[in-house]
């Protein structure tokens, strides 16, 4: 079955081609059938592959030789193993649900754009599948840039709006900054090892010096920073909410942004061997988690809150990777995919109902109008807040426990972040669903529950969010119940061997879980009571709140520190250096010739006397030159 893995990306590719080329001739229903159908097919194959891997272990499928250069060769090959098959399931599964959801959500679009939307979406899935399936870093990079491209296309989907286009461009450029790091790492690997195929790289990792490993891992991590929106390259992700909401759910929550985690998990052995990089990953992840959480506290756009929450949750995943909890990180990717996709889709449902109103200050009391959305949204909030036994609890707990064992400060800070998460999620929940409606009458009149193609994915995802955590029950509850860890064990085996694991005692764990759960519940209660009445809805913020509302002014900082100087530099180059200096020199030669010409013309005075005078003088000079090595000069001196 693994041999047929190429079908997994092939179906979306076919979908892309059909929808892309036929977007003008196909009907909307046809387009959505094709779009969803290929995803379903892909999902089915993925399932088969998954079980095949589970039964028979990993394989590599080589399709053809991509680049065969002088010093190296890079095959176009797929790595089918536990990690990639798991990601296949997440991508195609959630991907399918979101395609389904989109068919309803995007129904207002014109046919042509509807087709374009599905084509992009299929292309995205194709790229994402390449990213996770690739058997070497180059194929991964193809997917890596491919998803960036699709993200760009989808953020700028409503291309008439220039704001959206800027957001799309920003996303792409920031991703590219990271990609450069990734690419440099690839070059480094090729330079040192002559190969980028995972198997060869990981087995020959001992040939690399520790400096090489550190450099490569840091460069790779730069790539991850861009793709997974970590400090300092995170600012694109909140702006990326300009895209249609299902896109945010799929790309900017569930799949693409987790590519960085996948990559590091894939390269776990390299990271394990470099303590410096691991620490860097952990600290960056933690910092991002806290930083994004603080910003999320004061956001009023429903999607922006979710976006910062995503950034924050990605930070947790990196924390997990940084402390060696690779399984935990992947686990969190999975659960996060469930509940964050659910949250986004729920938000989409709300926005749909509110006629594209995204400001939570203008919502409220939607509970009674949209019961399914409400329930599923609440479940997702509980999951992300980390209330047991929802899925988020298990994955977050696993990461935090590992963080504690690595460094207790990580834990405390991480816990702070978790509390903030609980706070802003329930602020969001309360403002949206509780209290009374604050929107216009028009909106109030039209409030309705979304159609079933939208609610079915919500329900499915809610189920997954609630029960998804049970694949990774920690040892403290039941020994050997962490089936995910068992499944992924071959991937992280080498790393785990190297890592010096010191486990916490069960009692410690119980205490920590209890305390944190209690604190979270407290925060939730506080948030719900505080925002049920929507107390601070129209407050003018001052001090720290204002700073938070303005996202720590990071965008402005980047603007002054990087963008503006760069623009000034390019203006200087264009208007001064290029025009006046470089071209000036070139034209100057021409002008000099012209000037010389005008001056030399004057020599030709028209007077015969002058002509002859010059001739005589030159004759004298020539004689002097000719005999200058002889004694004529001395003689002339004597004469005077």
């Amino acid at each position, binding site marked *: 079955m693994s041999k047929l893995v190429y079908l997994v990306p092939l179906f979306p590719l076919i979908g892309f081609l059909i929808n892309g080329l036929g977007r003008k001739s196909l009907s909307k229903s046809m387009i959505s059938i094709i779009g969803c159908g290929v995803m379903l097919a892909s999902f089915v194959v993925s399932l088969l592959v998954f079980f095949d891997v589970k039964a028979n272990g990993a394989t590599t499928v080589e399709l053809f030789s991509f680049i065969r250069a002088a010093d190296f060769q890079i095959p176009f090959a797929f790595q089918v193993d536990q990690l990639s098959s798991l990601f296949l399931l997440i991508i195609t599964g959630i991907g399918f649900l979101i395609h389904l959801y989109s068919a309803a959500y995007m129904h207002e679009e014109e046919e042509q754009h509807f087709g374009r939307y599905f084509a992009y979406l299929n292309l995205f899935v194709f790229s994402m599948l390449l990213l996770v399936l690739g058997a070497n870093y180059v194929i991964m990079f193809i997917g890596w840039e491919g998803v960036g491209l699709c993200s760009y296309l989808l953020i700028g989907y409503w291309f008439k709006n220039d704001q959206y286009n800027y957001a799309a461009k920003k996303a792409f450029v920031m991703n590219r900054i990271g990609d450069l790091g990734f690419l440099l790492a690839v070059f480094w690997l090729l330079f040192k090892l002559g190969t980028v195929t995972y198997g060869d790289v990981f087995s020959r990792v001992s040939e690399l010096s520790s400096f090489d490993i550190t450099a490569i891992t840091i460069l790779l991590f730069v790539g991850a920073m861009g793709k997974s929106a970590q400090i300092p390259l995170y600012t694109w992700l909140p702006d990326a909410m300009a895209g249609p909401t299902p896109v945010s759910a799929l790309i900017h929550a569930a799949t693409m942004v987790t590519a960085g985690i996948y990559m590091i998990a894939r390269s776990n052995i390299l990271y394990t061997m470099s303590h410096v990089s691991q620490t860097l990953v952990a600290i960056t992840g933690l910092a991002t988690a806290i930083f994004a959480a603080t910003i999320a506290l004061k956001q009023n756009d429903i999607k922006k809150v979710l976006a910062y929450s995503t950034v924050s949750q990605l930070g947790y995943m990196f924390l997990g990777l940084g402390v060696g909890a690779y399984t935990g990180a992947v686990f969190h990717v999975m659960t996060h995919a469930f509940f964050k996709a659910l949250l986004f889709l729920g938000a989409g449902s709300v926005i749909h109902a509110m006629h594209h109103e995204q400001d939570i200050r203008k919502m409220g009391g939607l509970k009674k109008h949209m019961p399914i959305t409400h329930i599923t949204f609440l479940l997702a909030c509980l999951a992300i807040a980390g209330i047991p036994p929802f899925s988020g609890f298990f994955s977050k707990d696993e990461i935090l426990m590992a963080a504690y064992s690595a460094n207790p400060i990580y834990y405390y800070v991480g816990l702070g972040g978790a509390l903030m998460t609980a706070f802003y999620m329930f602020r969001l929940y309360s403002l949206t669903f509780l209290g009374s409606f604050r929107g216009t009458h028009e909106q109030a009149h039209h409030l309705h529950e979304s159609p079933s193609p939208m609610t079915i994915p919500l329900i499915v995802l809610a189920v997954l969010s609630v029960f998804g955590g049970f694949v990774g029950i920690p040892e403290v509850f039941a020994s050997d119940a962490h089936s995910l860890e068992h499944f992924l064990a071959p991937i992280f085996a080498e790393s785990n061997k190297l890592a010096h694991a010191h486990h916490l005692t069960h009692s410690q764990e119980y205490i920590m879980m209890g305390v944190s759960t209690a604190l979270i519940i407290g925060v939730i209660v506080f948030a719900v009571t505080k925002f049920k009445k929507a107390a601070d809805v129209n407050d003018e913020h001052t001090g720290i709140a204002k700073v938070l509302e303005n996202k720590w002014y990071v965008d402005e900082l980047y603007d002054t520190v990087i963008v503006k100087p760069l623009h000034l530099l390019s203006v200087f180059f264009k208007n001064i250096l290029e025009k006046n200096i470089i071209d000036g020199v070139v034209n100057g030669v021409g002008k000099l010739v012209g000037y010389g010409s005008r001056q030399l013309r004057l020599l030709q005075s028209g007077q015969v*006397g*002058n002509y002859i*005078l010059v001739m*005589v*003088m030159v*004759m*004298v000079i020539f*004689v*002097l030159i000719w*005999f200058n090595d*002889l*004694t*004529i000069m001395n*003689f*002339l001196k004597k*004469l005077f």
Partner: protein
Amino acid sequence: MSITQIMFFFLSALAVFSAIMVLVSRNPVHSVLWLIAVFFAISGHYILLNAQFLAIVNLIVYAGAIMVLFLFVIMLMNLNKESEPNKHIWMKLAGAISGGCFLMVMVSLVRQAADFQGKEALVGTGDIGLIKNLGKALFSNYVVPFEISSVLFLSAMVGAVVIGKKE
């Protein structure tokens, strides 16, 4: 100082003086006359050098024919008065200085030429300048250039006709 030396210096002084007078005379007719004086002095030198043929030819052709032609032209144009406007003084100065420099450089060049030290031009003796010897050489070794110079005269003749003829 022998008579030839005295003659040499006298003729030289005459030649140089007359030549200078050619330039400084304001009246073109005077210039012509002074130039004729130069030619006479040079002819005197030829005689000193025993080049009688050239001395005669010089007088006949130059002083006689060419200078008369000049005079004719000057008369024809009615230039026999001091009509020439002065050249700019700086131009004159520059001309004189560069001419002087030329002289100076050339003289110093000759002064340095060691291979002329002690060489003499035969004065009074030597019969190569006699018409008999010259004629013999002219019509034997130099007959080709002699004939060819007819082409020169032909073209000069044609030229004078072309240019002088009234249209």
